[in-house]
Structure formats: C-alpha cells, structure tokens
C-alpha cells in the first residue's frame, strides 16, 4: 500500500489559489502521518509556479510537459498514469468541474473511495482519515470514511482551507513525466463547432444583498408581490423567494433560496408568508437577523426567527408602505 499524499493540480492553472490551499492541507496531513506530498501537474513548465508549489508544502512535483492545448480526457489519462506509478495513499483534487470529473474517473478506475466537496479532512482519534462534507443542501455535515480500498480520495471545495507558506528545510524534487499512452481516441468524440461568450450581464447575485425580503407561499397574488418589490427597493433590500413561489412563477429561479436553490448570508432577512421548512431554512442559516411575518402562529419559521410577527401580511405591508413613503 502506498504512503504518499498527492494533489492533482488544476489543468488550467496548476499553481492557482485553490491548488495552494489544498497543498497546504496535504502538507499538514503529511506531517501528521509522515507522508510525502506530491503535486501532479500537466502544462507549460514555469520555474516560478513550481516554486510556489514547493513554498506551500509540496515535497515533490511530478510534471508532464504539454505545450499544446490539451483537452480534459487527455489530461485525465496523464494523471491516471502518474497515479498508477505512484500508488498514493491519499489523493486530493480541487472540486472544479474538471477536478470532479478527474476524481470520479480515477475513483472508478482504481476502486478508490471518493468524497465530494470536502470541507474538512483529518485523522480521528484512532488515526484513521475522515472526510467531512456538507450534505442535504448544507443542512448537515456528514463525516465519511473510506472502506474496502487502498486509495482514499476527496474533492475539496475552494476557500475551506487557508494557504500557508511552509518552512522547508530540504530542497523539493522534480520528476519529469513522459506520457506514452496513445489515449486520444475518446477526445475526438466531441467537436466544438461554435463558442459564444456569455453576456456580461451576470446572473442576479442574491448573495450580494445585505438585506433581503423573502417571499413565501403566504404571498398569494401578484399585487402583493409588486408591493413587496417596491417597499424593498425603498429600503434598499433585495427580493428572494422559496421554492413554492418560484414554482408559482412569482419570482425567478435565480432568486430561489434553500433546497435546490442558493444559500445566502445577509445581514437582515425579512420573510413574508414563509412557512420555514428546514429545506428553506438551511439556505439562510448564516443570516444575522431573521424577521418573520406570518399569519400562522405555529409556522416553523418562528423557531428560527429573532423577531416573530404573527399578523396579516397585507396589513403589515400597508403600514410599512406608509412609513417607507413618509
């Protein structure tokens, strides 16, 4: 069984921020279990970039020079070949689209346990490695262990680990890797005919709102909705909604918060007619102040609210309108 920890570096930018964060984590794990940390890279050789990898904790760089543009299947095959030679104990991969694809393919090929979107990786009291990830739309943290396998893998979310320079005593090593495979056959399955740059107009970023008004099923007509929008504008708040109102066509899917929507962390969250199902609440668990208006005294949202207002939504809106306009 292998002993090394390897980090699969990004196919576009092998010393990017995300990669260095993972290298830092790998280094700390490596120190705990006395393992070497290797960075697997494919691309243009660059002394500065290599230096970066060493500076944040890599002991060894396995480098495959590719000066031409290469596609993802080819990248995966090179990495797989490197892994086959090293037979590491742990493989960490950035949780990007390409990283996830690479990890899933390696996990299948090497029968390795793979945890997606890790937010923590460490050894438990018994010295066994575990991977933590948020699950069920961030409502819970699951601790996962690898079983029946010799290679343990995880894709790692961005910004969960902080990169830190490592005080290195010895010089790092560089291994030049030559890929001899002929694996390009699958690459020609996909032929790009046209690339269209997406409009600069970005999706509404509901995460940029410091204050939000959230609409729930209790808002029953368009007129009320319009009023909420207009009051929100006066108060400098953005408008979001639950899945139920998205489904009604009341608001855009890009504004959906909670289960299968987005998570937000505003300073102030005010809900109108939101029942407070946990699938919605997980999306606002980082809101600092929660104000809830609902006619139903027993609505679940009052379990999470800092200010619980049991009242008719229209009545409160009427008054709010008056104040906001004054």
């Amino acid at each position, binding site marked *: 069984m292998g002993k090394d920890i390897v980090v699969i570096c990004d196919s576009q930018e092998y010393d990017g921020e995300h990669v260095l964060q993972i290298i830092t984590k790998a280094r700390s794990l490596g120190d705990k279990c006395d393992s070497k940390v290797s960075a697997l890279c494919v691309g243009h050789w660059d002394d500065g970039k290599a230096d970066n990898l060493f500076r944040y904790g890599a002991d060894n760089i396995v480098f495959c020079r590719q000066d031409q543009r290469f596609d993802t299947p080819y990248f995966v095959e090179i990495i797989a070949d490197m892994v086959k030679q090293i037979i590491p104990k742990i493989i960490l991969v950035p949780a990007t689209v390409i990283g996830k694809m690479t990890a899933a393919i390696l996990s299948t090929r090497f029968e390795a346990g793979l945890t997606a979107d890790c937010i923590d990786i460490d050894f438990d009291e018994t010295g066994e490695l575990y991977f933590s990830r948020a699950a069920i739309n961030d409502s819970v943290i699951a601790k996962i262990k690898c079983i029946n396998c010799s290679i343990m893998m995880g894709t790692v979310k961005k910004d969960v680990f902080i990169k830190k320079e490592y005080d290195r005593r010895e010089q790092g090593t560089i291994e030049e890797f030559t890929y001899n495979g002929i694996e390009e056959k699958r690459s020609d399955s996909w032929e790009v005919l046209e690339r269209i740059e997406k409009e600069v107009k970005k999706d509404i970023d509901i995460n940029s709102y410091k204050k939000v008004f959230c609409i729930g099923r209790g808002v029953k007509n368009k007129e009320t909705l319009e009023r909420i929008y207009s009051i929100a504008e006066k108060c400098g708040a953005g408008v979001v909604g639950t899945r139920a109102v998205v489904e009604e066509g009341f608001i855009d899917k890009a504004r959906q918060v909670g289960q*299968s929507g987005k998570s937000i962390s505003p300073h102030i969250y005010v809900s109108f007619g939101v029942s407070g199902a946990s699938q919605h609440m997980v999306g606002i668990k980082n809101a600092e102040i929660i104000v809830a208006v609902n006619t139903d005294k027993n609505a679940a949202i009052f*379990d999470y609210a800092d200010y619980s207002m049991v009242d008719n939504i229209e009545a409160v809106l009427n008054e709010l309108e008056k104040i906001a306009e004054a």
Partner: protein
Amino acid sequence: MKIVICIKPIKSELIYPNESRVEDFLMNPYDLYAFEKTIELKKLIDCKIICLCMGPMSSKALLQKAIAAGADESIILNDDMFRGSDTVATSYILAKAIEKIGNVDMIVCGRRTIDGETGQVVYGIGERLNYYCLPDAAEILDAQDSAIKVKQVKETEIIIGKLKTPAVVAFYDFVVTQPQISLLALKRAKKKDIIVWNAADLEVDASKCGLDGSKTKVLNVQKEIVKKPKSYIEGNAEEKAELLYNIITGKAHNS
C-alpha cells in the same frame, strides 16, 4: 438511436417539504430536466428511450409516469444486494444494466442528485463503459444516427458542439415543476409492464455491489441549523411595521 436515461428516485418530502403528496418517490429534479430535454429528441429522430432506475419497487409509479410522458420502456434495478451502494458501486450496477440492455448509443444523466449531491456517478458510468462523457449539456439541438448537436453551458461561455455516439451526456440544470400528464396517457402507460432486474439478472459480482462494493461509508451526520427561543412581537400591524422598518434601516437596537 437507443437512449438510456438514468433516474434516481428521491423521497418526495425531500423535494416538496411543505406538501403531503401521494407519491413516495419522485424523479430527482436534475434527472427530470435531463428527461424532459431527452424526450424532445423524439421530434428530431427515431429513437427508443429507456428509463433506468436503481431503487425501491415503489419507484414504479414515477417510471410509469415517465412512460406516459413519452419514454418507451422503464427498468427498475432492485435487489437487497444493491442497498447502501456508494458512487463506485452504483456506477458498477448501472453500467452492468446498460451492458445488458445492449447497443446503447447514448446515456443521459442529470448533473447530480439532490440527496447524494456528488455528481460522480455520471463519470463512473462513462469510465466503466469507455464512453466519452459530456458534462453541462443544456439542450440537444439536432440529432443524426451517429452524432448529436449539443448546446453546452459553461461558466463563461456557451458551446455548440457535435458529439459522436456512443457517449454519456449529463445535463446541467434542474426543474422543480412536475410535468403535466394526461390521465389517459397514464392509464395507457400503466398497461405497460415495468421491467425489474435483480442482481442475478445483471450477473453482477456481489462483492462490487451495495455496502460490500462501496468504498466510502458515512460515519455520522450532524445537524447544522439551530432553533432559537421563540420571540413573538406584540402589538398591532402598525407597531410591527414600525419595528420592522427600524430593523431594516438599522434604527432598532437588537434587544
């Protein structure tokens, strides 16, 4: 063209937490998006669409609906041996079923499931069958016997490309609205048998299925959201609105 759509049944309360519904299970919202986009292919090309679903026998209802909505056939993969499969074991079982179906030109998947949230099985299937795997598909624009034209949506660009079959296609988005299905179509669909395959039918290696075949195990799960003590605000609508306004504008001091 023979197409297999992989569908994961999801407990309906996970998708519709506020409602009590007659169905125990519904299609994973990402798979539903993939399903709806794939059914549209029928307008472009002569194709056979098979729904493949590993899960409990009560997934039958959602598979019948899939037939009513335009699929040609539905298969349930059900065996005690399959229980507890992680992504490695799941892709093994699904790939075995796809091999058994035979001569499949295209495998369609949703990007991920809303309960497992890994998005790994798609690539696992591609790897096991040695098929090219195309992520982030948004739409199939055109189809011929040996290739399809796909619109792919990436973070910064949209790509139109030609994908040679056989291949795996993963769609990027989800839908939350259940399709409208006519009662007549559903009645007709119910006459069609749903095929059930177990471990013996698939000739799978038992050591590669279920918990035995899984490479990961969930140790424990911790709740992340905490309840707060209830704090009802007294007063009439006017007073509440005033407090509300003061909170929003930062005039109220958090007591």
